[in-house]
């Protein structure tokens, strides 16, 4: 399932952070990465392009990560898309909220490529189980 050609969308309003995530993904062998500055732009891109994986921040202007997640889950064409939340929100309520909204995974900043890889392989595993 972890095809290196998978297309990622990295959503964060802080370009430094997008670059960090992009670099970490590159370390893991994923080079097909697009970026979006907020949830609204991300949703537009998702609807237009064939993305396989979304990595999103929580706190963003216009449309937050959690709103984006809900919108994805509510969209028939997108609802199966794995969504990994990467955020500095380490509060219990936030994690629960994300879980309830249907996040596929949750990473608290800062993290390493190792953490990212671990979380992603868990998500792939789960997806494969479902597919099987």
């Amino acid at each position: 399932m972890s095809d290196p050609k998978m297309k990622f969308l990295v959503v964060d309003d802080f370009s430094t952070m997008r670059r960090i995530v992009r670099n970490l993904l590159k370390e893991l062998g994923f080079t097909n990465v697009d970026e979006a500055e907020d949830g609204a732009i991300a949703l537009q891109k998702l609807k237009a392009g064939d993305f396989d994986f979304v990595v999103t921040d929580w706190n963003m202007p216009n449309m937050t990560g959690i709103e984006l997640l809900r919108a994805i889950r509510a969209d028939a064409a997108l609802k199966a898309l794995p969504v990994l939340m990467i955020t500095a929100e380490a509060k219990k309520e936030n994690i629960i909220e994300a879980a309830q909204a249907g996040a596929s995974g949750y990473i608290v900043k800062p993290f390493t490529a190792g953490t990212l890889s671990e979380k992603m392989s868990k998500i792939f595993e789960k997806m494969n189980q479902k597919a099987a």
Partner: protein
Amino acid sequence: MSDFQGMEDLLQDFLVEATDLLSGVDNKLVDLEKSPGDRGLLNEIFRGFHTIKGGAGFLNAHELVSLCHLTENLFDKLRNGEMDVTPVVMDVILDATGIVRDMFGSLERGMQPTAANPGVMSRLRAALEGQLSDGTDPAATAAVAAAATAAVAAAVAPEPAPAQGVPSAAAAPVGAEPDWVSLHQAVTGVVPSAPQAVPEPAAARSANDAGANAVVNAAFGRRAGDRPGTSAPAGRRDAEKSRDNSIRVDTSRLDQVLNLSGEIGLTKNRLTSLRADILAGKADSDTLHALDAAVSQLDLLVSDLQNAVMKTRMQPIGRLFQKYPRIARDLARSLGKDVELVLAGEETEIDKTMIEDLSDPIIHLIRNAVDHGVETPDERMAQGKPGKSMVRLEARQEGDHIVIMVADDGRGMSAERLRAKAIEKGLITDEEANTLDERSSLNLVFLPGFSTAATVSDVSGRGVGMDVVKTNIQKLNGSIEIRSTQGKGTTFVISLPLTLAILPVLLVRLVEQHFAVPLSMVREILPIQQEDIQEVGGRATMVVRGEVMPVLPLARLLGWPQKNHPQYGVLMQSAESSFILAIDSFAGREDAVIKSLDDFRPKGVAGVTTLSNGQIVLILDMKELLSSMGDTRGVSRSSLIGNIARAA
């Protein structure tokens, strides 16, 4: 040497973006003071700290993370309506923001920031628990102060622990959460330690706390307000230089550059093929016509490309302006004045290198406006003015110049008082004072050693005088002037060239040699008739439309012998003087690309440029030439035309 080996790129990116973000936060804080209940603002500020925290985590800047974390938590409570924005809370937040900026400073120098001032950290925590006493208690008596010192000392000791504790607690869920699903299931059950719980400092809220806060506030709050002036140690220059190397450019502008270089490539191909034709002997009128067309097109494209490349260096001046409302606010508060800094023209674009060099002069002008320019609310009321004073910072483009104005609606400047002051300080003589008109009198403030405040306050009187402001502006090939109406206010007008890289010049000729003078100083060119030159007070002068101007021969300025009777005069105007530069002839104007003479710089030469015909020409620095002459009032008539008159 650097704490960030291997992460320099990331660090630079972070700093550029996070500094912008923090300036935005600063501005929003000033707005927040006006409308404390604004949820949108609270949300945006929360997000600012949150984002900075996230980025700082990757740089392992733990101290920055803990500080942002506390501040963010505070804003979380504020935006959720669990707390109200009170002036005390506001002060804590502003102090915290100041420290974040300091920490950026150490990051810029490649060092991990040290722990935030424990006083601010403990006040942040106190604010979080809603236990921050309002500083209205005037308890700072000697006895309390002594107790407070002890309390502060106590607060220092436990500090490192929480500072370490917060990031590790924040990071805990990463490692501690083994499986997403189990966590999901844990929703109803007991969840491991709530990471946001902030360790309570051992220094419990004692009765002395109010005093401690007051003392800590006095000791550090002051410094927060003063930062702009004190943040100029030698190290900063280096950091700025290293940051100079990178620039953020709108991709559409880069696309334009790419597009133009592509078209130039095509035109080059056309020229190459035409050359082949011509070398093969095909030189009919069609070929020549095509050559002409291709060269014209290349001409157009290259100048477009130059413009486009220049534009990549242009940045909106708003980036610079952003940080000023906060500075003005802090200053006004410390002086007991009510000042609003109004920004206008933030979208005006200006060369990036200039933005950095303008920062300090503008800070100084704003300080000056708030400190000396505007009156206290009481004084204003007494004069029938609104209690709140406005300081306006505005930028706009006027032709090939950028104009920046700092205008206040304060008491204005008195030419009379300025003259008296200058005489008292021994800067000018009585006689000189009498000859000064209104404008020249105002310009006295630019003299080194001049300060109008009767008592030098620690705000504006920092040893950096207006003369330094002026020197800095002049270094950018700009000028500064003052307009002031007594009782109505003072406006400082800075005028700058659009860019430093290209300088429009006038080419003048002396004997067989060409020189370039900055076109920005040239007002007009006049023919010189021998009989027009009159001698006033032993100086050669010319009357131009009723105005008497000294005539300065270029030969004399350069130390050359005067061989010919000068045919033309160039009326030059700089901020402090107008004069006629006498030359043999002129050759037109040109956009000079300045090449500086790095190691070897003769006095009075700003640089060199290459003309279209390949000739190398010196660009003259008029101000330096004038000062090297010592006496700028002119030369005698006979030395100018004497021997020629004899020859005639």
